[in-house]
């Protein structure tokens, strides 16, 4: 993993089009701003993982358990 140190209002570029700016640091929370093309999807990692886990569980559903 690449590790970089940034100060508030400094940013990093990912490729030519994606910019991640550190907006604010307050205690243990960091606010980030993300500038990306419209066709790039940005998610919080937790929600992405939750949906993935839920899909895997849902794929085990069997017809005999489905209510009428």
């Amino acid at each position: 993993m690449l590790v970089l140190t940034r100060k508030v209002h400094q940013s990093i570029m990912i490729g030519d089009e994606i910019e991640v700016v550190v907006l604010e640091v307050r205690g243990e929370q960091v606010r980030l701003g993300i500038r990306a093309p419209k066709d790039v999807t940005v998610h919080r990692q937790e929600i992405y993982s939750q949906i993935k886990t839920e899909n895997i569980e849902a794929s085990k559903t069997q017809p005999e358990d489905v209510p009428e």
Partner: protein
Amino acid sequence: MTLTTSRFGTIEYTDEDILTLKDGPLGFPGQEKYVVVSHKDGSVFRWLQSVDDPGLAFLVLDPGVFRPDYSPEMPTDVATELELTEQTPRIVYAIVSIPPGNPEGMTANLAGPIVVNAETRFARQVVVHDPEWHTKHPLTEALPSASEKAAA
């Protein structure tokens, strides 16, 4: 065409029946082709049966059936990708999960709905950021017929 599945035996389908779920559901990359199968006549449930994996199917329902107020914001990138405008007929499916052997534990995932352009039959699983909608909305009490079965 014919498809042999682990849950439903043999299914007949045509190209027009295929729904293309772009990139597949999260956790199932590349599983893009599905046929929509009715659970039973009159049932609110459908199955999305994978064309490429006979053992892969997802139980789904229209979330409006139990949450008429469900209208999460559509991310711009998804609307663009699916060519969805205000006028485009669309179908939204919530994936339903029932722990094997435990129908009362049935939940619907409203954080990751599948949005379908009903004209092109292209679809994508959308990540909803509104904390009101999460991955495990209990369904047994929300659906009257289901709670009757659970009580029986």
